[in-house]
């Protein structure tokens, strides 16, 4: 077992990152990642700059990890929109999300956006498909048309 102090995560550049630039800027914190010896699970919290996108550029990791977002700290009237899609032209899920809602990503790209004036904040939770070997954070496929600048997650990625 292992205890993870949020205060210590905030001071660790391998676990805490201001990712992206406006209008896709967010504060990313890895709580259960490479800092914890585990088989399948990972988790962390992400807080957007008000009105910004997160998980941008869109990425997917469905061969390694399934994921879910739990939306937190979004007091009314804050809301966001969560996308989950394999085909950008015909997204399978476009969902308005508010405090307490949970969206699963069994596959597909999964960017989201905050309504102006409020944040989109979430606990992200992941489970490795193959225990141990697939438990890699930040090893993602960026949606090809947005991939020129990388994933934006390089500083906290487990990619070798």
């Amino acid at each position: 077992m292992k205890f993870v102090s949020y205060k210590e995560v905030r001071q660790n550049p391998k676990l805490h990152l201001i990712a992206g630039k406006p209008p896709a800027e967010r504060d990313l914190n890895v709580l259960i990642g490479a800092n914890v010896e585990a088989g399948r699970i990972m988790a962390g919290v992400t807080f957007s700059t008000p009105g910004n996108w997160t998980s941008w550029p869109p990425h997917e990791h469905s061969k390694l990890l399934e994921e879910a977002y739990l939306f937190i700290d979004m007091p009314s009237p804050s809301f966001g929109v969560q996308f989950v899609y394999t085909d950008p032209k015909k997204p399978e899920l476009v969902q308005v999300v508010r405090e307490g809602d949970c969206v699963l990503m069994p596959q597909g790209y999964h960017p989201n956006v905050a309504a102006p004036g409020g944040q989109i904040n979430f606990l992200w939770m992941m489970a490795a498909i193959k225990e141990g070997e697939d438990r890699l954070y930040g090893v993602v496929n960026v949606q090809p048309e947005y991939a020129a600048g990388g994933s934006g997650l390089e500083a906290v990625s487990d990619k070798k």
Partner: protein
Amino acid sequence: MDQEVVQNPITPETCFVPKTHEGRGRRTAVAPGATAARYLHYGRITLAAGDAPISFNSDDHEVGLICLNGKATVKTEGQTFDLDRYDAVYVPRDSEIEVNAPEGCDLAEV
């Protein structure tokens, strides 16, 4: 050769679980079977001030507890941890876990 990975489809019925923050006690929102999850679990442990502690066993999957609000004391396999907001505890399989929160807490259980 790589084994073919079977992926569940993206549907509103299996990929959206609304209002999981509502309720009290320990409850499950995401688990393999009822949702698109194959390995992922998510539930919630919400205790009001004065509620009795909650005990359970992690059984066949690892557990991560993340404190979303309030303060919680987590006891597991002889160790005790005090969780403040966004602190987390990772607990391996087959471990006894007790959550106590005299002033109330709201935890996510992954």
